[in-house]
């Protein structure tokens, strides 16, 4: 497994397994599509679309009446997305592998642009935001989702805490990067600098929902999302990691299983 920039998971390596997380973040994509308000004939771009969401959900909703393009820099993720398109025989949706901070489209091509949990992960978020502005038509709608501040993202916060001191700092989960747009004013500044003036931000809490802690941990392990950190740990320390996370998670155990609150920023506006 090769190491991605700034300790992000190796998206190509975990592409086949990433979908185990998709049901948990589906509420985010659903909220984005409501704000997007796609109409017949729209050309829509989904940037950092990963294994295809929310582009594929949009395609299913619109029954081929919009033209959707999904792009991601990780070829492995794009391959998974494209396989779903073929399997479901969806029309008017295509995926391409490309640098998300240098989109291979001319300016003002798309009526609407989506980017779910992508902007903060770009090596250069400002350049990525500049590109969203560039390819959007005047008057076009953009809808983004970015994670909130570190303490409002428990699962990542726990991972950071339990690995801190056990693995070298350069192997720690990228908590600061992932939550970098959660600080007050951060996403607004980024978008203003890109050229946007209509910027609406709503902080929303939703829940990861698992039947039990074991269920949650099974997803963590099977998705390889922390593989880099695990690989840096001695075998003897791995069980203690699970136990420490379980202690953090205890406060979120309810009669309906494990419900872990996460905050994200739903961001939208017109160019």
């Amino acid at each position, binding site marked *: 497994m090769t190491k991605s920039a700034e300790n992000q998971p190796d998206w190509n390596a975990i592409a086949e397994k990433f979908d185990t997380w998709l049901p948990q973040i589906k509420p985010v994509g659903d909220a984005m599509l409501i704000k997007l308000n796609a109409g017949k004939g729209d*050309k829509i771009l989904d940037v950092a679309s990963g294994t295809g969401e929310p582009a594929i959900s949009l395609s299913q909703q619109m029954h081929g009446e919009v*033209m959707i*393009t999904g792009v991601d*820099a990780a*070829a492995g993720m*794009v*391959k998974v997305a*494209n396989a779903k398109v073929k399997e479901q025989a969806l029309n*008017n949706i*295509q*995926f*391409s*592998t*490309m*640098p998300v901070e*240098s989109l*291979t*489209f*001319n300016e003002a*091509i798309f009526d609407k642009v989506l980017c779910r949990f992508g902007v903060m992960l770009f090596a250069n978020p400002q350049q990525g935001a500049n590109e969203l502005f560039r390819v959007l038509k005047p008057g076009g709608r953009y809808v983004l989702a970015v994670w909130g501040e570190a303490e409002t993202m428990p699962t990542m916060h726990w991972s950071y805490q339990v690995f801190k001191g056990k693995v070298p700092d350069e192997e720690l989960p990228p908590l600061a990067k992932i939550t970098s747009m959660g600080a007050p004013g951060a996403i607004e500044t980024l978008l203003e600098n890109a050229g946007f003036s209509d910027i609406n931000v709503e902080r929303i809490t939703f829940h990861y929902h698992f039947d039990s802690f074991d269920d949650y941990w099974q997803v963590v392990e099977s998705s390889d999302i922390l593989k880099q950190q695990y690989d840096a740990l001695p075998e003897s320390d791995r069980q203690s990691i699970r136990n420490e996370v379980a202690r953090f998670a205890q406060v979120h155990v309810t009669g309906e299983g494990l419900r872990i609150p996460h905050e994200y920023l739903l961001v939208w506006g017109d160019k």
Partner: protein
Amino acid sequence: MDRKLLDILVCPLCKSPLVFNKESQELICKADRLAFPIKDDIPVMLEEEARQLPPEEEVEG
């Protein structure tokens, strides 16, 4: 391969229009003389994945 996406893709380096070579399944930038592969119907618009065209290779279109 649906042409709608191919029609709006441009070169990642110079943003010039691209020529689609159906036979080789490549998108070619005449200005930069780079050929971007289409793998399993997925255009791969990464410079590091592109093929540099040799001087003798002509680009039609």
